[in-house]
């Protein structure tokens, strides 16, 4: 199958060297610099001295920042949970739909996903604003009944951030869920139904346990980008429901404290890599099981 690289050195060097060099220079080096900065401190206006101290990490774990980190984790977890609840029935339908319907449902779910993230967030903002479509619609309805209407505060709060993240991340979860459910042995579901279990019971006692590794993998695939999201919380959240990415951005732009920002972004990196490792581990265990 694969040949040892020594067998044709020229072809190997031509195919391996350019991408490897690019990746090293324009991806690994920038990350390494940030990583080094996270152990440094700012001297004067711009100079950064790297002195190997964990000072920035200690600061990142102070209550004020720890709270933001925990808030980001819980917002991402809540987002994922809601996506799971909304997405599961859709994935179930997709699994058992006719091939033609499958294509159309998949397309319908994925098309918004291919639309620019900024535009999707903006579109949702226009619906939720104080003078947005939803509030104006409700006001018209209220006024028709002669009631006084106060616009609902649907923007710049935690509700808006979670709703926004659900809106932009939903397709992320539906696809892996569908992939997990599609692999199931249908005769087991039929057996459960034949033996008298209801649909709900079949889903919770047969489908969910069997598809658990795939569901977990989908959950992590949604959780990871939700945790690191910048744009949606930045535009839809208020001052007291910032997520970690906005704090990182501030350290690099306005606050100009690069070493601290570097430590925060590496904390986010570590969380991401841990989630990835968990996901890789579960899908591997699953693969071996089958």
């Amino acid at each position, binding site marked *: 199958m694969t040949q040892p690289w020594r067998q044709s050195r020229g072809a190997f060097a031509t195919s*391996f060297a350019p991408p*490897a060099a690019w990746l090293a220079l*324009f991806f690994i080096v920038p990350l390494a610099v940030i990583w080094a900065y996270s152990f440094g401190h700012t001297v004067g206006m711009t100079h950064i001295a790297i002195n190997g101290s964990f000072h920035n990490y200690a600061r990142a774990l102070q209550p004020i920042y720890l709270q933001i980190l925990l808030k980001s984790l819980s917002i991402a977890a809540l987002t994922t949970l809601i996506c799971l609840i909304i997405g599961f029935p859709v994935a179930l339908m997709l699994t058992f739909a006719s091939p033609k319907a499958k294509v159309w449902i998949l397309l319908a779910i994925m098309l918004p996903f291919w639309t620019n993230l900024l535009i999707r967030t903006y579109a949702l903002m226009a619906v939720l604003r104080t003078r947005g479509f939803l509030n104006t619609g409700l006001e018209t309805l209220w006024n028709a009944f002669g009631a006084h209407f106060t616009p609902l505060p649907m923007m710049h709060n935690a509700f808006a951030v979670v709703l926004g993240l659900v809106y932009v991340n939903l397709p992320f979860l539906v696809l892996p869920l569908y992939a997990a459910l599609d692999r199931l042995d249908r005769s087991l579901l039929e057996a459960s139904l034949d033996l008298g279990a209801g649909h709900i019971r079949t889903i919770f006692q047969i489908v969910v346990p069997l598809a658990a590794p795939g569901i977990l993998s989908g959950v992590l695939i949604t959780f990871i980008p939700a945790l690191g999201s*910048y744009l949606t919380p930045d535009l839809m959240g208020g001052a007291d429901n910032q997520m970690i990415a906005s704090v990182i951005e501030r350290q690099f732009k306005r606050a100009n404290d690069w070493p601290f920002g570097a430590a925060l972004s590496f904390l986010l990196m570590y969380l991401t890599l841990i989630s990835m490792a968990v996901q890789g581990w579960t899908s591997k265990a699953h693969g071996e099981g089958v």
Partner: protein
Amino acid sequence: MKVRAGYGHKRSALAPLDYAQRWPLKLWLGAVLVFLYAPLVTLVVFSFNQSKRNIIWTGFTFDWYRKLLGDTDLLHAFGNSLMIAMLSTLVSLVLGTLAAVALWRFRFPTKTLFEGAMALPIVVPEICMGVAMLVFFSRILPWPADLIWPLNLGAIVISHISFSFPFVAVVIRARLASFNREQEEAARDLGASEIRAFFDVLVPHLQPALISGALLAFTLSLDDFVITFFTAGPDTITFPVKVYSMVRFSVTPEVNAASTLLIAITVVLTAVALKLQGSDVGKSGGHG
């Protein structure tokens, strides 16, 4: 017995696993689609609205699109975005193909390490990559600001290539799995050089993946906001960064019009990609 009889009766109407036909699930899917599409549809519809207040429909107009054409800043940003996407796509396609071929064809000591490193740009949070690029291009490799267009876009193009080409490599590698090595060996036996065999045998086989990889890289670059936001200077604003600054300060029909344009581009690119992939699936099925 009674249960089974009742069940049998139900069965005649609907197969037990025919979840796609059950009305509660249909209703659910309908609600999800309304949730996903209603904001986008209103955005598009209201880009044709006369009223500047953007809430109540007052009449049809193309005024906002006309205004867009007069907005030189926005057009400049749009031009930047297209140029960046094209350059990034070209380089990503070459690097991604080479990486995929190296991983597919060879065994080498650092293979696992290389595979892991190639997966990193796909999983690293955008914000982390954004700040890393910001630091890199201001401290390690300061990109001159006064270069002529499009050279002044270099820092953004480089960043975009870094996160795009691993995606291209994934697409190409999937296609390589279906390549029959004997074809290449036959070409070599018949006297073709390594390079000739690559371009005359392997590349034609890869063509559908090359096209979908290119479209993927193009869309990724065109859509990127976070990483560009950290690498763009005052003269190198891209379309999403420009729209972001517009959105921050106001919600106007002009932004709606600009967004509609970008949605239209995405839909067209997606349609082309699907069409090509569809015919690709058909073709490989035919071969099989």
